């Protein structure tokens, strides 16, 4: 009798294992839109969010196989603990130490963006990833060769099979996998968010409260809540770097009024995303506040709209800074789901 029970238990386990092995449908997971946030731009219509796709995207994100000499991964310039940007480098360096021309942008709440890059040249999250792979100063690799390497690997074909139902790795499912990972990088759990959600026991200090007031009166038009960016383009009056000669959005549209316009970055986790501005010219948040307060030159000719210095006093500057620090989201920066896959 005992043996019979054991035998049946064994059979059930074996069956379970077999059905698990043959499980072909990837597991759909929900994309959580934080309460009161706008509807995401990314629709998942042609790329449903699945656990297998997300995991695969994360593995690819951290794998230097995407670069020509297997030295650079996406994470080389987009580190989780600093809001998925390249901390401490004004412009990022890629393969063989080659330098780019712009400060690597954060990868935060990308689902709510319709354009990517500082000049907005990329029109869809799914096609963004081709840029760093092929850029000579980043991964300097050819798409064909990446696909060849991935198709020949011992691990990737089965992972693609699990995520997309085919072990043939193509541009399309490679990009879709990367998208499922990057689109999932949602930061919505900062002190600011908790206060806005009226969570028990979380309150702004007086200084933070004043900072929020100053922020809403001066900065929020461009750095619009709750994303802390309007996701459009603006000129902040910074003079052109004479070496980088970056004309911003004009390079994409050739519209003279787009000259020196750059995409407004989110301020979420801004405490850790230094250096700041499109060319990373400011190392400290304090420097940025000082620039907006006193450094703007209203005579700069390429401003599409006149921009005046905000002239904050010292207390206002401190208050503003303390508010900006409430945008730090440790649950995001240390979320093990976004970390190097184990």
């Amino acid at each position: 009798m005992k043996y019979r029970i054991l035998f049946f238990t064994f059979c059930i386990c074996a069956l379970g294992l077999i059905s698990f092995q043959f499980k072909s449908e990837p597991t759909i997971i929900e994309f959580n839109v934080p309460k009161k946030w706008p509807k995401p731009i990314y629709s998942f219509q042609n790329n449903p969010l699945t656990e297998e796709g997300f995991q695969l995207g994360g593995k690819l994100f951290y794998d230097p196989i995407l670069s020509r000499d297997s030295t650079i991964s996406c994470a080389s310039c987009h580190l989780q603990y600093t809001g998925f940007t390249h901390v401490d480098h004004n412009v990022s360096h890629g393969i063989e130490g080659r330098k780019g021309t712009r400060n690597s942008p954060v990868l935060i709440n990308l689902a709510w963006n319709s354009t990517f890059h500082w000049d907005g040249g990329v029109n869809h999250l799914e096609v963004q990833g081709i840029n760093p792979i092929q850029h000579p100063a980043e991964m300097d690799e050819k798409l064909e060769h990446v696909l060849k390497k991935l198709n020949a690997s011992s691990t990737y074909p089965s992972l693609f099979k699990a995520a997309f139902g085919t072990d043939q790795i193509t541009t399309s499912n490679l990009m879709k996998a990367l998208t499922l990972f990057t689109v999932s990088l949602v930061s919505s759990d900062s002190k600011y968010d908790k206060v806005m959600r009226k969570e028990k026991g979380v309150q702004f200090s007086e200084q933070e409260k004043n900072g929020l007031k100053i922020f809403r009166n001066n900065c929020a038009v461009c750095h619009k809540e709750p994303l802390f960016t309007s996701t459009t383009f603006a000129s902040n009056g910074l003079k052109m770097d004479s070496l980088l000669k970056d004309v911003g959005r004009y390079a994409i549209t050739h519209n003279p009024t787009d000259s020196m316009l750059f995409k407004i970055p989110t301020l979420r986790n801004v405490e850790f995303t230094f250096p700041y501005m499109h060319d990373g010219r400011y190392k400290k948040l304090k420097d940025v506040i000082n620039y907006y307060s006193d450094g703007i030159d209203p005579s700069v000719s390429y401003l599409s709209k006149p921009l005046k210095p905000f002239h904050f006093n010292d207390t206002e500057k401190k208050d503003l800074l303390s508010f900006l620090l409430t945008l730090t989201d440790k649950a995001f920066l240390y979320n093990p789901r976004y970390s190097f896959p184990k």
Partner: protein
Amino acid sequence: MIRKSSLIVSFLMVLFLGFGQTTSLKITFQPRISNETIELNKVYALNDSVQLVISTCRFYVSNFSFFSKGKLLSQQKSAFLLDLEHPTSLDLSFPSRDFDGIQFNLGIDSSTNVAGILDGDLDPINGMYWTWNSGYINFKLEGTYTVKNAAKIPFEYHLGGYLSPYPTIQTISVEKEQAENIVIQLDLQHFISEIDVNSCSNVMIPGAKAVELSKLLSNCFKI
């Protein structure tokens, strides 16, 4: 009983014949120079003093519509990449209809340009996609242009861009009675002869020049 089965047989025959009649229509694109189909890397003498070599000729045609007396019969919302390097890509097949006019786009429409990552002929791996300024290159022509006793001028015309005010897509209409095979010629000699290659040997970005050359190109298609 016999009558019944013969009815069925004749019905099947009618069906069969009916299907037989809807043979497929073959449309062949023929990029031409000097009234002949272009051979890549061959030297063509345009006249006594100008020599032309085409090394790349690749373009998209899309959204074929078939008309009869001005009425839309059918439309196929897909894009085809035609590449002289792969001559079979120049032959397209459609279900045959009783039409008298065909319309198609030279290039990729704006909704496809913003649709994210796509497969097949629209895979960015085909080298017809700008990644830094997302969008398809509708038409790519590369080669050299040599005037006698002068230096060889390499030219690269990468025409594309979908955003206002510089959309490059062109709609091309041809009138043609139904036939099994239709050849649509693309007179690239005319195209090149209308460009001052010396002063404009490179177009690699969306903009006014890309629009101008795309319009010029659209006038070079004929049956």
